[in-house]
């Protein structure tokens, strides 16, 4: 495919349109013009671009509420442009970028810089998440109001938990006046000092320092209680333990404003992966046990966990290919999001496509308070076409991300992004990235 004019009228024909925001799941046509979704109907005869979507899923552009783009500070791992390109290749049109950069996104200017770099790149939308505390030090609140003015869609010290219960309480209280969410990396630091993996049988066997599940559970319990007394919005990032899932479920039952996200690696892999000492299995929170994986899947099934997010954490090979205690935590996730979710949730029959797409569109849009995640009339024309039957082999050397750190290399998988439209422009097809404005597909 080539030659897509910018802001063309696009006619997507014969696809399975899935839009959980409107409870739609039907075969039909979708029209886009001047960057907007047109109302369903006939009579749009003069489309400049027609996309044959028979056999494809047509859904709102996917939203990843948890990525790390490393700019400013560690551009060798990822830039906002390369990360936003990886997002497109993964079918993702909007991402929320974590603030653990150098310097941290803890000021209005820093948040605006993220937005500016994303506009320059003109790939996926990039929304900054601001730091909870100045310099992510966990001591004083960051300038949350000014960060909101700069475009911050939520607040977190992700990578580091907000260890102080008193600071966490203040953050939940203060952010509530902007109706912004506090996203917490839940982990009691004292229980995870020096840890590289889940504490349990596998860590004992390998002689590696462990991070107990209880370190997560304790902080989840604490923060749900703090959200309860403050009325603030709490989001549990990358939930990984069975007990945490149960705590969130119970908190929701009490009416606490708590949401949770799960990452594909936490519903497909366990700490047994580290038997090979491969640092691509080292993440934080760590890969847990099969019973935790089952509990996370259970939480996704019953709605306790309403969001799927990648925690895309790129690291250059020279940093990641080191001794396990020296290697940083995390894996890239954007370009494996669709197939690994299919593998972990759809193929085994845990969730169907509309349920998965809900957790990747309208639910994260509501979390972040952004006007995305829907194909309703007049909505921003961010659309992802997924080929659910495409079978392919994950090859990290072909990633658009600058980094290659994934445990999924070589996996034979099903499902991938076919065509990605952002602001009414076709910006990615299986043939490659489409250069903005020119409409030419680059290789």
């Amino acid at each position, binding site marked *: 495919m080539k030659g897509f004019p910018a802001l063309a009228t696009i006619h997507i024909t014969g696809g399975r349109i899935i839009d959980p925001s409107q409870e739609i799941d039907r075969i039909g046509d979708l029209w886009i013009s001047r960057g907007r979704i047109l109302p369903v109907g006939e009579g749009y005869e003069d489309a400049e671009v027609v996309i044959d979507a028979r056999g494809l899923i047509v859904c709102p552009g996917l939203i990843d509420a948890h990525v790390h783009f490393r700019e400013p500070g560690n551009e060798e791992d990822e830039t906002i442009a390369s990360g936003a390109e990886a997002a497109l290749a993964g079918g993702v049109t909007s991402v929320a970028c974590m603030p653990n950069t150098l310097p941290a996104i803890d000021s209005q200017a820093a948040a605006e810089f993220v937005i500016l770099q994303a506009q320059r790149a003109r790939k996926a939308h990039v929304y900054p998440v601001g730091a909870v505390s100045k310099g992510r030090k966990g001591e004083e609140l960051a300038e949350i109001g000014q960060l909101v003015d700069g475009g911050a869609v939520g607040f977190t010290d992700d990578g580091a938990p907000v260890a102080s219960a008193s600071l966490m309480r203040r953050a939940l209280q203060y952010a509530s006046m902007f109706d912004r969410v506090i996203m917490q990396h839940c982990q009691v630091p004292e229980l995870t000092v020096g840890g590289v993996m889940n504490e349990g049988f596998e860590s004992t066997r390998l002689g*590696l320092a462990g991070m107990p599940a209880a370190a997560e559970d304790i902080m989840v319990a604490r923060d749900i209680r703090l959200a309860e007394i403050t009325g603030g919005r709490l989001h549990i990032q990358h939930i990984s333990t069975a007990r945490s899932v149960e705590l969130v479920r119970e908190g929701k039952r009490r009416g606490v404003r708590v949401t949770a996200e799960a990452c594909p690696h936490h519903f497909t892999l366990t700490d047994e992966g580290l038997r090979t000492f491969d640092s691509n299995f080292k993440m934080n929170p760590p890969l847990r046990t099969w019973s935790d994986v089952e509990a996370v899947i259970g939480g996704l099934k019953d709605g306790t966990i309403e969001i799927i997010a990648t925690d895309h954490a790129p690291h250059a090979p*020279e940093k990641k290919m*080191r001794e396990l205690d020296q290697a940083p935590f995390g894996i890239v996730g954007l370009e494996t999001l669709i197939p690994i979710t299919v593998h972990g949730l759809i193929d085994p029959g845990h969730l169907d496509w509309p349920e998965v797409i809900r957790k990747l569109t309208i639910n994260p849009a509501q979390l972040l308070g952004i006007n995305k995640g829907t194909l309703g009339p007049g909505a921003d024309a961010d659309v992802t076409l997924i080929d659910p039957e495409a079978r392919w082999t994950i090859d990290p050397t072909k990633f658009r991300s600058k980094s290659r750190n994934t445990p999924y290399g070589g996996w034979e998988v099903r499902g991938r992004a076919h065509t990605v439209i952002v602001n009414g422009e076709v910006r990615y097809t299986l043939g490659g990235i489409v250069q903005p404005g020119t409409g030419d597909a680059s290789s």
Partner: protein
Amino acid sequence: MEPHAASTNPVAWSRKHLLGLEDLSRAEINGLLDTADSFAEISTRSRKKVPALLGRVVFNLFFENSTRTRTSFSLAAKRLSADTQDFTASVSSLSKGETFIDTAKNIEAMGADVMVVRHPTPGAPHLLAQHVQSSVINAGDGAHEHPTQGLLDLLTIRRAKGKIEGLTVCLVGDISHSRVARSNLWGLLKLGARVILCGPPTLVPKSMERLGCEVAYHLDEILPQCDVVNVLRIQFERQQKALFPSISEYSQLYGMTQERVRKAKEDLLVLAPGPINRGVELTPEVADGPNSAILDQVTNGLAVRMAVLYLLSGTNTKRSAAEESLGDTSTSK
């Protein structure tokens, strides 16, 4: 000249690296011990040297302090006529920011055939084995494994007791932080021993029972059943915070004293991987007494390391084309 037992009773060995005892089969472990037995004889000769590894280069890469293991490997390599070179992290370019793998690749470029690696991080030798052509011997990776120590303990038990199968062996002490415990555990289980791990719950994770051993907290209760007690050192340097209240309480609960030895089987074999903290894990009377095999362990360590170097050098056929055409007469067949 070939060591006679190794040549008359050839051992099936196809591994390029020795990274841990968990990976090895019972037959491979027995093969290593048989080979070590034959090398032990060499150490009793007046001329303690064979030409098996003549022209080969053995590098000791130690990223953590060690005296006896490094010395033992060096001497083992020298008895096989290999050239040996030590590389110690404290005087290396690691402090200049060079990665561990780059350091190893540099050493390989100097012609290392075998790298003996000690490293504070579990899995570091495994990582190295993926990036270099040389054979890699794990000489201790954090709290994970120390296979040659495991083998020398097995050899010491086998020589003293004539067998390993059916024996009850107790490992006492800081199991959590001990690579010696893990290598011993795998080796002993594979050879059919009953293994008991003994120490306070802060040092002996209950989850280790899933590996096929037993966990006990009270030494006096299990000691009468034991044929062998292997007394592990308290790793003061590895312990980030106090995992037991005091040294004196630890000694009282787990120290091998003359009184405890008297309550045990008469032929109880006492091992200690060393270096020992005299008076903490072991009283001097026991360390130097008739049940102690501590010095045999050191002697057997040499034989085990010769066996490992010998067997690995037989499978790592990294040779140049020129060498092939000239015929390499210096190495063993």
